[in-house]
């Protein structure tokens, strides 16, 4: 859009790179502390007034999810060179709000064991902080984001109630529960950032059913909530500017150099710089910011920037049952199990089970799917495929007789799994793209096999016939990008310290899932928010 002022802000105390949950929380907290904050975001600012139109696009089969949030394209080019052919842009959103614009909203906490994997089991590494260190920030994050849940069933220790009551159980949940009771497996309401009542000025869930990719009511939290708070407190957000280099001396960053859509380049100066750009773009920016001082990339004396990339493999078992499961489309999770979260001195490692809510066939999708042009014979009756009028509803069967259980699977950090720069390919601004290279590893594969066996046992106990299982060696990946600027006390073994400040550069911070030393099997966003709240206190003390 012409006429938008994308020039740098003078006198900024803090420059935040990235306007997702992490950047939003940091910006809101620092602005509240009186700091002059500027946020630089590569993606656009989506108009909240467009959410209903986006929902129509999401429901109609003529559109793809990536259209709705402008995902992919020249800005987001990447390469994938490892064992896993990785679809980086499938669920990653660049925009004011980040990937939470598109997420499902599932927000379990990590468990204490995730912080002590080396001490307990002799695998991977310990975090330099404990669950107890993060615990008050988890509670604060749950209040900030608006999390529903309760204390049932094998969750990590907590003393504070969830801010909101959980969603009730669906009919399918009841069928899973009968089987789990027989097998002595605990279930619990899924903790999630989706309001069961009006909360923090946002609507309760009204059941649109398009959580992924878009929530029109605002009942699902997304990072633009905190960005809005930050702006109310005086922070300035510049969208559609891509930071391509952090200019620095030996000990400090001086400016973030960014490029606007028309190719104009500016320098944003500040006292402190926070890179909050996720597990891929955060290490990429440090690597792009190489210099004579840091020839291998900024803050990379350890050589670990980009290493230890982790994901959450996801595996699913689908089954068929004689009775109807859910008659209405519930398109979010309502029950999970953390019974198998702890693992042991595995493999198998940690597993978080997700009890699927099966969907009846969508009448919109059926009616709009259009003609099957492959079968057209060019003759008269042949409108082909789905007709309209009286024939419109022929063939649609909305009775749901399927079941599925999914599982998040723990993957261990492996030094050879990494994000690097691919000098052979550039983005729209001429900068090398990130290359994501990783393999799933035997620990995760064996954990996935265990998850599939548990899923099968539950479903068969429920009286269902298993029809499909994920190949444990070729799982789905849940778009949780983690581990690439790991946190630690030892500068030779980590990129950021326990406060999330880089060991090498005194005014440079990484606030992102990139700092996770290990990942358990819990979805990462609540931990990202908790770490952002904690880091904000250290940043505030430095202002």
């Amino acid at each position, binding site marked *: 859009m012409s006429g938008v002022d994308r020039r740098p802000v003078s006198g900024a105390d803090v420059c935040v790179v990235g306007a997702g949950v992490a950047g939003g929380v940091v910006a809101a907290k620092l602005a509240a502390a009186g700091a002059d904050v500027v946020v630089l975001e590569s993606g656009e600012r989506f108009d909240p007034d467009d959410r209903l139109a986006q929902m129509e696009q999401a429901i109609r089969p003529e559109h793809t999810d990536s259209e709705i949030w402008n995902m992919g394209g020249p800005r987001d080019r990447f390469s994938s060179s490892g064992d896993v052919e990785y679809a980086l842009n499938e669920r990653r959103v660049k925009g004011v709000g980040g990937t939470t614009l598109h997420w499902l909203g599932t927000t379990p906490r990590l468990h204490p064991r995730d912080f002590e994997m080396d001490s307990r089991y002799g695998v991977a590494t310990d975090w330099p902080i404990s669950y107890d260190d993060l615990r008050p920030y988890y509670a604060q994050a749950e209040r900030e984001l608006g999390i529903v849940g309760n204390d049932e069933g094998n969750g990590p220790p907590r003393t504070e109630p969830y801010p909101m009551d959980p969603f009730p159980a669906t009919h399918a949940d009841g069928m899973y529960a009968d089987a789990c009771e027989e097998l002595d497996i605990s279930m619990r309401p899924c903790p999630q950032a989706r309001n069961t009542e009006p909360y923090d000025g946002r609507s309760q869930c009204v059941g649109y059913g398009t959580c992924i990719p878009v929530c029109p009511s605002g009942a699902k939290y997304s990072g633009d909530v905190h960005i809005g708070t930050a702006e109310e407190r005086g922070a300035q957000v510049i969208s559609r500017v891509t930071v391509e280099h952090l200019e620095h001396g030996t000990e400090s960053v001086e400016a973030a150099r960014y490029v606007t859509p028309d190719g104009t380049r500016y320098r944003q100066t500040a006292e402190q710089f926070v890179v909050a750009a996720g597990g891929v773009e955060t290490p990429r920016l440090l690597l792009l910011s190489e210099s004579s001082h840091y020839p291998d990339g900024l803050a990379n004396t350890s050589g670990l920037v980009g290493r230890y990339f982790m994901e959450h493999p996801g595996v699913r078992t689908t089954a068929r049952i004689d009775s109807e499961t859910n008659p209405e*489309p519930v398109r979010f999770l309502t029950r999970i199990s953390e019974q198998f979260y702890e693992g042991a001195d595995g493999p198998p490692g940690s597993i978080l089970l997700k009890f699927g809510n099966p969907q009846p066939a969508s009448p919109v999708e059926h009616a709009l799917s259009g003609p099957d042009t492959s079968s057209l014979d060019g003759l008269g009756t042949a409108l082909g495929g789905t007709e309209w009028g009286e024939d419109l509803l022929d063939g649609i069967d909305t009775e749901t007789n399927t079941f599925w259980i999914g599982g998040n699977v723990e993957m261990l950090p492996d030094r050879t799994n990494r994000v690097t720069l691919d000098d052979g390919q550039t983005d729209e601004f001429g900068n090398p793209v990130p290359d994501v290279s990783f393999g799933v590893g035997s620990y995760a594969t064996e954990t996935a096999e265990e998850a599939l066996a548990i899923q099968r046992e539950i479903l068969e106990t429920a009286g269902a016939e298993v029809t499909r299982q994920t190949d444990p060696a070729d799982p789905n990946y849940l778009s949780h990008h983690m581990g690439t600027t790991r946190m630690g006390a030892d500068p030779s073994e980590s990129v950021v310290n326990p406060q999330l400040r880089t060991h090498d550069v005194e005014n440079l911070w990484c606030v992102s899932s990139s700092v996770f030393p290990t990942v358990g099997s819990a979805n990462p966003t609540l931990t990202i928010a908790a770490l952002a709240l904690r880091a904000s206190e250290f940043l505030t003390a430095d202002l």
Partner: protein
Amino acid sequence: MTRELTRRDALVALGSGAAIGTAGLLASESKGAGEAADSDVIGTVHAVAETVYPDEVTATRAFVRTYVDGQSQQRREAIAEATARLNEGAKRHTGQRFTALSEGDRTATLTRLGVGRVESNPDGSVPERIRYQLVNSTLYALFSSPLGSELVGIENPTGHPGGYKSLFRPPEGEQ
């Protein structure tokens, strides 16, 4: 007896009918603000809806107007353009505007224009745009509202803000 789709049903299809006080209502109102669609446009969209809907439901002009006026200006222009192309095609083949045709001739006209044989595409050829902006949009409006989805047993279809509690009902005959 057929069920009649009203303005209220169209508000539902726009995602605002039952969500009083939500961002959805505000959004649909603000996006729909401005100049209302031309009466000829509404008449043509209404004629398309009458043609493509199952006999169990009947769309009123108010239903169609509410849906169309609830769209962004850009979408309304695209819908208007598609109605112009449809009427041109109807005149070419029958000598009359689409709205003046019997239901049988309307179906025949859509068929002759190739609308039933193409992929729906807002940026495509004329029949592809007619399919997207008129046929599929009116079908979307119908089946994202309970009056459409209840034809296949779904009370709170995806896209309808019927409240999350309605999503949790058990199957018929179950507790």
